[in-house]
């Protein structure tokens, strides 16, 4: 079944094409558009499910090897053979060859010889300087891509179903689903491509779809600006990514993952402070990841991206697209792990982003903004995991985060829908009475993100924090752990705040009229006549349909009356009571809530199961293991896996390495190849406690404790004593203001980059309009003058001469030529015959003369 994976990206593209090209022209009904979109994604989900099952768990499973469709000939040579110079990383290749030589020599020695200090002759190697680059279009199915395929199509399916309810009544229904389908296609391309270039195509495709969908309400200035901001910020990241791809090609001569990683795995490690070629490639890749996954300092676009419809926020800006950076870092973990510097950078950037975004999340009032900052923060956690070498855990968190964050975004969408396009949490409160399904499912998401056992978020977040504390990959693990723990506390706090302000406490939606912060942009657009007031629609997603003054008025206490009057248009629009969303919206919520609750068990912490990752391939850490490079053995897969699937697949050379080295060196190799002397939190505690399990339990308790503290503080501030937030905001005024204004990063960028760019543009424009245009105009003036002179000469001299000659010839020749043309057919025929005769005469002159002479002689002889 895994042979059919090429269908998975094609189906959503097909749906998108049908909806996008035909939807408007033939005025497809909403059920038809929704059916096509949801159907295509559902089909692709089912195929993914079957493919992953047969790949990883079926009787003919090829796990742990990657399956690339070109193996079966299902590929085409997309960018065919160009010669590329391999001019990067020759020192590293030299080192690889030397190492091989050394291994060979060591293997040939007796144990006594090996024990002595060795001196190896330095050989120089001649490498091919160029390679033939063939980039094929083929899909790769391996543990990493299979997880992403399932998450993208599975969570995507829930969100598509939700969107059919949420976007009901929107004018651009077909357009929305066409973009969404196109996004699914690009995202699947990104995670399923078998080489860097295909990943880049998908990468740009999701960027484009993100742009299109953020700017879906393009008649709103705010949305149009946000979409451009997202696009431009991503370009910075893509620049780094593109450079890294060129670096990969110039170093390895290929872009195919399998070939690149097979070469890269033998490269020497680049320890802290050493900038070898792999470090530079990793830097470029990480810049790309920063852009796509909204890490510092390129995070600014993601919160603004909330101007798009809420299903978009859930699908693209929470569950899937923003995790593309994680996918890329994990996919290229060989390269990242070779560069200790970049591992440290990844971990520190992740930790900084996690804390930074979490602190901003505390003070935001727009429900979607809070979730957006929460997403940025959670992505920071994932990068933390990658930075400390726990790539599988990072992907585990991607998965659990996709469940609970998509759930919460859709929940927020449901709230916005039920509150009639109100996004400001200060005007909510007490919604659990009106929206029971949304409330119950949101509760699951809240507990999951806070990290309460046994919800999914707990397992992944706890593992991340444990990995940071116990990392042997980088120094400063304790710092990363500390920052992560504080960020986790903040997370629990602001999510509790969100719950309290939205679902619990006093019902404030009747007190305060709409038109506050969240609606300002809408209102001004309406005032300026930019946005039409489309209150006659039953629902139009996030579209603003109420201007500020409109909400004050009689309250529709009876929901049925409200619903019946809602569709008629033009009624005096008073404040509404919120109502529960339709089943098409809450059923996906329930599905995601179930996943957010139990989804974490695929990566159950080893501390709970006797220090081992149990469950075989069903355990996500074990399932992902074959793609994670192990710096100790220099092969893919960890030592723990060594027993489970044997040496045959992954450890052929590692075995040789281990047996041929002297005793001491083997130990050193297994102990970890990175120099990470210095304080290691987990190891210090372990040496005090004397047991690894006890240490792990300590950290589990600690992480539960900080979650509890966060929740407790949240409850204290926003449920128990609602005056406290204001009091503390006053007490910590500078911090509050800084967080409320998002640390003025946007303002800083505006001042430092946007304004400078505009100034530079203005200067260049001035230069262009004054100097360049002046020069051009001057040249034009000169040319004009010159051409006038030349024109005079031409007109009076050259033309005069030509005319004179022409007139002379005309007068001389025309009587002759005219006389030849009699118009009588026979004249022409005569000339023709004469011509023929001349030709014949010339051609046969000799023969004819001879013949005539002979004939004359014969005739003469006849009579004489």
């Amino acid at each position: 079944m895994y042979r059919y994976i090429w269908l998975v990206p094609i189906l959503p593209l097909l749906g998108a094409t049908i909806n996008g090209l035909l939807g408007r022209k033939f005025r497809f009904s909403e059920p038809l558009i929704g059916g096509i979109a949801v159907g295509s994604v559902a089909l692709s989900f089912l195929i993914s499910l079957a493919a992953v099952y047969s790949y990883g768990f079926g009787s003919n499973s090829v796990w742990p090897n990657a399956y690339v469709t070109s193996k079966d000939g299902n590929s085409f040579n997309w960018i065919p053979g160009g010669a590329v110079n391999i001019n990067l990383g020759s020192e590293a290749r030299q080192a690889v060859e030397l190492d091989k030589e050394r291994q060979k020599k060591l293997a040939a020695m007796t144990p006594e010889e090996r024990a002595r200090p060795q001196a190896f002759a330095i050989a120089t190697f001649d490498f091919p300087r160029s390679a033939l680059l063939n980039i094929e279009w083929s899909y790769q199915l391996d543990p990493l891509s299979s997880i992403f395929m399932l998450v993208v199509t599975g969570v995507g399916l829930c969100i598509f179903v939700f969107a059919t309810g949420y976007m009901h009544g929107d004018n651009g229904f077909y357009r929305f689903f066409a973009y969404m389908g196109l996004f699914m296609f690009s995202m699947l391309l990104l995670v399923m491509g078998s080489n860097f270039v295909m990943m880049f195509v998908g990468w740009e495709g999701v960027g484009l779809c993100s742009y299109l969908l953020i700017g879906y309400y393009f008649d709103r200035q705010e949305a149009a600006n946000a979409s451009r901001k997202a696009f431009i910020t991503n370009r910075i990241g893509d620049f780094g990514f593109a450079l890294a791809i060129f670096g990969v090609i110039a170093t390895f001569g290929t872009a195919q993952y399998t070939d690149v990683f097979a070469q890269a795995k033998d490269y020497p490690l680049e320890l802290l402070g050493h900038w070898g070629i792999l470090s530079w490639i990793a830097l470029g890749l990480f810049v790309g990841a920063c852009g796509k996954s909204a890490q510092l300092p390129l995070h600014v676009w993601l919160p603004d991206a909330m101007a798009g419809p809420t299903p978009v926020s859930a699908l693209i800006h929470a569950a899937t697209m923003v995790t593309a950076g994680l996918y890329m870092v994990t996919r290229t973990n060989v390269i990242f792990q070779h560069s200790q510097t970049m591992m440290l950078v990844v971990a520190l950037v992740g930790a900084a982003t996690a804390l930074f975004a979490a602190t901003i999340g505390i003070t935001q009032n727009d429900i979607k903004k809070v979730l957006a900052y929460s997403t940025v923060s959670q992505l920071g956690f994932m990068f933390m995991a990658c930075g400390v070498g726990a790539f599988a855990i990072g992907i585990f968190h991607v998965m659990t985060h996709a469940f609970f964050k998509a759930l919460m975004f859709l929940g927020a969408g449901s709230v916005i829908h039920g509150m009639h396009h109100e996004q400001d949490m200060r005007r909510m409160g007490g919604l659990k009475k009106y929206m029971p399904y949304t409330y119950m499912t949101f509760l699951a998401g809240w507990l999951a993100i806070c990290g309460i056992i046994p919800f999914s978020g707990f397992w992944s977040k706890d593992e991340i924090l444990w990995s940071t504390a116990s990392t042997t990959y980088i120094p400063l693990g304790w710092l990363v752990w500390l920052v992560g723990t504080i960020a986790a506390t903040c997370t629990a706090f602001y999510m509790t705040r969100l719950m309290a302000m939205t679902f619990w406490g006093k019902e404030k939606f009747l007190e305060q009229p709409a038109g506050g912060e969240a609606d300002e942009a809408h209102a001004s657009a309406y005032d300026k006549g930019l946005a039409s007031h489309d209150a006659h629609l039953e629902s139009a997603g996030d579209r603003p349909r109420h201007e500020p003054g409109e909400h004050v008025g009689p309250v529709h206490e009876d929901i049925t009356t409200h619903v019946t009057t809602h569709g008629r248009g033009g009624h005096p629009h008073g404040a509404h009571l919120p109502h529960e969303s339709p089943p098409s919206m809450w059923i996906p919520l329930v599905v995601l809530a179930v996943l957010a609750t139990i989804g974490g068990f695929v990566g159950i912490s080893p501390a709970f199961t006797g220090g081992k990752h149990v469950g075989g391939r069903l355990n996500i850490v074990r399932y992902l293991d074959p793609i994670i490079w192990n710096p100790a053995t220099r092969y893919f897969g960890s030592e723990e896996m060594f027993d489970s699937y044997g040496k045959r697949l992954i450890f052929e050379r590692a075995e040789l390495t281990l047996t041929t080295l002297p005793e001491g060196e083997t130990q050193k190799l297994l102990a970890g190849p990175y120099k990470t002397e210095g304080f290691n939190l987990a190891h210090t505690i372990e040496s005090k406690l004397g047991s690894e399990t006890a240490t792990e339990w300590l950290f589990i308790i600690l992480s539960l404790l900080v979650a509890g503290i966060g929740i407790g503080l949240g409850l204290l501030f926003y449920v128990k004593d609602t005056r406290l937030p204001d009091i503390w905001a006053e007490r910590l005024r500078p911090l509050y203001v800084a967080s409320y204004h998002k640390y003025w990063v946007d303002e800083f960028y505006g001042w430092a980059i946007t304004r400078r760019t505009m100034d530079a543009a203005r200067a260049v424009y001035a230069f262009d309009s004054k100097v360049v245009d002046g020069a051009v105009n001057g040249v034009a003036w000169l040319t004009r003058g010159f051409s006038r002179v030349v024109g005079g000469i031409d007109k009076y001299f050259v033309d005069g001469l030509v005319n004179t000659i022409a007139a002379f010839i005309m007068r001389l020749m025309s009587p002759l030529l005219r006389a030849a043309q009699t118009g009588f057919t026979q004249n022409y025929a005569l000339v023709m015959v004469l011509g023929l005769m001349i030709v014949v005469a010339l051609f046969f002159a000799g023969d004819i003369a001879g013949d005539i002479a002979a004939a004359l002689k014969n005739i003469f002889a006849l009579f004489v």
Partner: protein
Amino acid sequence: MILTVFAFVVQEASGGVLSQMKESAKHPDLSKFLVIGAILFIIGVAGVLTRRNIIVIFMSIELILNAANLNFIAFSRYLQETGNVNALAGQIFAVFVIVVAAAEAAIGLGIVIALYRNKETIWVDEIDLLKW
């Protein structure tokens, strides 16, 4: 004079030039046909160039075509005797020429009628439309 005639008759009776000519008329060789063809062709060309009546010009054209046909047939026969396998091609071609000639005559006479209706004449020296 009588003597001369007598001598001629005696000469002929004993296989002279005339009997030779008679003999060769019974078994004509190629050159004779070619000569006849050439004469026909020249007559035709002369007719086309000199006659004023368009109908006669048409007839002259038929002469030219038939001169060509005669050549075809003659060569065909000649080749047959030499045992050439493609000998029949000349005869086939002659049939083609006849067909084309018939078609040409049909169209040509149509043109003549149209011309007469417009110009009230079939004398070619009164028609100098090609000048314009």
